[in-house]
């Protein structure tokens, strides 16, 4: 059986295991991407969100066979970018991170919102983050942080 080749955080990798394996498990166990959290394994909570070819996807619902040739971005890669720095600053200023478990996925969801729409309205931000559950914050701080990042980091998105 051929290895499954894909790009992970900018580097080409080849996965030798089964095409039926779950992307979430493979990212965590084989590539040590521990920022990808398991909150439900049913595609409901968004804690395992990653960007696959720029699209926000719950990695618990993706079989390895489906990622052949794809480019996958997790927080391990995203945290090296200027866009991440802008979001991190905005989240930090509003103390939008509490327990932190949903946050890597939430930040990738924010990236996905801003990549499509650099100047979103509050409703559009809420819509874009609605697949990512957070139990701590009540969401206001997170939504406001994404809004601030969009306003302050002009031109990044």
């Amino acid at each position, binding site marked *: 059986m051929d290895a499954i080749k894909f790009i992970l955080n900018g580097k080409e990798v080849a996965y030798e295991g089964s095409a039926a394996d779950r992307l979430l498990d493979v990212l965590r166990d084989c590539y*040590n991407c*521990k*920022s*990808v*959290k*398991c*909150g*439900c*394994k*049913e595609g*409901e*909570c968004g*804690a395992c969100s990653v960007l696959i070819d720029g699209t926000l996807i719950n990695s618990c619902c993706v079989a390895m066979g489906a990622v052949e040739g794809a480019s996958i971005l*997790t*927080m*391990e890669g995203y*945290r090296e970018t200027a866009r991440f720095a802008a*979001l*991190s600053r905005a*989240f*930090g*200023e*509003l*103390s*939008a*991170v*509490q*327990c*932190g*478990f*949903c*946050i*890597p996925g939430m*930040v990738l969801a924010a990236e996905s919102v801003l990549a499509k729409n650099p100047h979103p309205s*509050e*409703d559009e*931000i*809420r*819509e874009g*983050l*609605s*697949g*990512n*559950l*957070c*139990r*701590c*914050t*009540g*969401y*206001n*701080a*997170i*939504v406001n942080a994404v809004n601030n990042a969009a306003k302050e980091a002009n031109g990044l998105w």
Partner: protein
Amino acid sequence: MPLRGRTLIENTVDSVLDSVADSAVVVTGYRADEVESLLQGHYGEKVLLVRNNAYAATDMLESIRTGCRAMPACDAFFLLPGDMPVIREETFRALLARRDGQKRIIFPTLEGYRKHPPLIDSRFIPEILSFFSEGGLRSLWRLHESEIIEVPVDDAGVWVDLDTQAQYKQCKTKYESEQEVFANMEKISQSVVKKDHAPKIEGRSVYVGDYVAAKDGRPILTGKLLHAKVARAKVLSVEVPALPEGYFYVDAKDVPGDNNVNIVLDDTPVYCRETVEYIGEPIGMVVGPDEKEVQRILNEIKVEYEELEPVLDLRTAKQAFFDYEFGHGDMEKAFAEADKVYEEEFETGYQDQTYLETQGMMAEPEADGRMFVHGSSQCAYYIHGAVMRVLGCGPTGVHVLQDVTGGGFGGKEAFPSILGSQVAVAAHKAKAPVRCVFDRREDLEYTSKRHPSLCRYKMAVKDGRVTAVDCDVIFNAGAYSTLSAVVLQRGIIAAPGVYNIPNVHVRGRALKTNTTPCGAYRGFGGPQTFFAIERMMDHVAQDLGVDEIAFKEAHLVKQGDMTSTQGKYHFPVPLQAMIDEVDAKCDLKRKHEEYKKPQTGRYRRGMGLSVYFHGAGFTGSGERDLIKAVAKLRKYADGTVEVLASNGDIGQGVRTTFPKIVAHELNLPLDKVYYNHPDTARVPDSGPTVASRSLMVVGELLRRAAIKLRTIWVDGEEQEVEEHFKEPDFMIPFYLDKFQGDAYPTYAWAVNAIEVEVDTCTGLAKVLNAVGNFDVGTPIDYNIVVGQMEGGFLQGIGHASIEKMDYDAKGRIRNNSFSDYLIPTTKDVPNLTAMLHVEKYPDGPYGAKGAGEVPLVGATSAYVAAIEQALGKDKHQLNHAPFTAEDTMKELLKEGN
């Protein structure tokens, strides 16, 4: 008179220029020079300034004419008085959208009243200039009734004109963000970037599931629990298949010490005894290197049961784990003399904590023979005590570390003692590190949650006042007692609410059923009884024909009054002021009045209010007699200071707020003071991370320790200071056997207003507005405290509306995934506001009180009150929570809709 950091007139001008208009004509008069120079400097060309010099002698129409004369060429203009600073952009846009090319005057209306600012076609200008008549412009418009268009708007800003100081103050409360109000707050309240911000947002924080190996490098074995499949049975046999090399089956026979987990009592077994008492009870654990293989073995284990009749109905349950009773006054007399006696029954359901990180614990046998237990948890020393007993070793035989924890909300108060004991036994048997992380289904079905409740209240009323209340409170404890004793205590102490009722009797029971044991959840018994008393007060007021809000206000306790346990409210009770603030923020009273009128359309609205407290810190004498908290500071030679305490950061921010307090007292930069996750081998027992006590109690110990360290500080030396808890002098000693005395030193107070719109076709309710006003004393970090309030408030609204969980006829929890158990998303309550009212507590650090729990407690009653009002109180008396869309449909069906 500033508003939002600008003058009123700037607010007004901004409101038009920022939204729709190209330029503004401002007519000045009083102190015209000052106003003109301000506006000229700020807006330049965009504002045209004209003066009505005779402002004092003429009416507003003359000023309007002055403005019209100066009007540059345009199609239409808004007429806006300078003291209406908070009109929303949507209102201007809504008016513009109705232009149809005809000569029109387009008025915004609110509740049928025509308000400013009308959008006036400029073809009216000549008429305005030549119109001289009594009654101002209004009489001109009367001549043009057919040219007027009315546009209903949802903008309370059209009510706001600031003619008086009082109106100005009210406007400030309503339209300034809290951040602006707190712009000049005390230094300790000013927000900092949280200490754990960077590792968490970068995804570098290591939660228990993220370890790739044990501390000594050994691989970690995976443990999975064998859960009982029936609610009550004798376990006749457990047939385990042949185990491959390196795999183990662990059960009660492997427990080296006592097979009982120490919580409040010790009735919870580590692994089941001869019987299982609920679906999900752990029978044993399979342990091994490969997770899939562990799962395969688990699937092949055969358990033979002799089934027994389970107790599942709370109404017929007989066995009480705890049965308390207290009261004061003369109940018999009060009921005998009452004008009217009311009785009602209230029910609330389960609520799951639903921390995003599921339960997970890990145990590592160390080379020196100690057992190292760590994981997602709130109370390192609770686990320490439990594991010691289970392993049968002394205090030095075990040490417990709190890992980075993905939320707790009470769910990780006692449960990690159970799971920690289970993995410790497994690691002891396997002589290898073992980790057990629950999947979401296990977590939802088998871990502790909020107690469902059944409260029966009886209330006596004489001369329009409540003279007595008799509360019969029943909590569904589940199969083992875990924390039910203390949850029940807090619940029943709050049973009469925040009202001054002279005669009180309370009975509270935690009954055993063959269901998942319930336990701690933010609010800890309070949400159940406050739901009952708040709804009871609403319903009694309705029957008496008085306004619910006014009825509650008339009964509020005040400073110096007696508590339900014959203690005293020692400090000011700011509830009336807090209601007024909420009213100013969201038009509580006006809307509540408005929505009382019969509603018949598809969409109907309601506004509900709840008023309540949360006793700050442990109930009763626990802090003094049981916890006896100790906290330390260790200063190193390099001048850095480490906080040594056992309170875990579970997202609430103590890794930041503890060092903030210490740095503040020592006048050090915040990066010189740090607080790591506690390991019982290194830190003293400053008590558990529960009861909204960490900051108030331990924070105060740290403040005092820092003062002590400051006085003995010697550069370049390692120094350590220690502080012990002392009960404040003013406390009336609490006796649990009689439920007498001060149950709490002080209280966090709260007022919630929730406005809903019910769609009578679908039953869905939209929360239009949720305003919570919380007095938790001085915020030690504004953002952190507001984050707690917003998060807790939303959890409360979830409990009130969509978080429905129950069990089937076999005793199995039916809602075991996020598709069945819904928690709020970003979209559910976009208009949620948390306000802070500060009543300082002298024995908390800088005036801080307990904060974590209070935001959750009152949402259920406010929400259900709002739904009831929307559906019409005359036809619908709602007395259970959660109140889901299905419940609304059932109510509407009763109406025959």
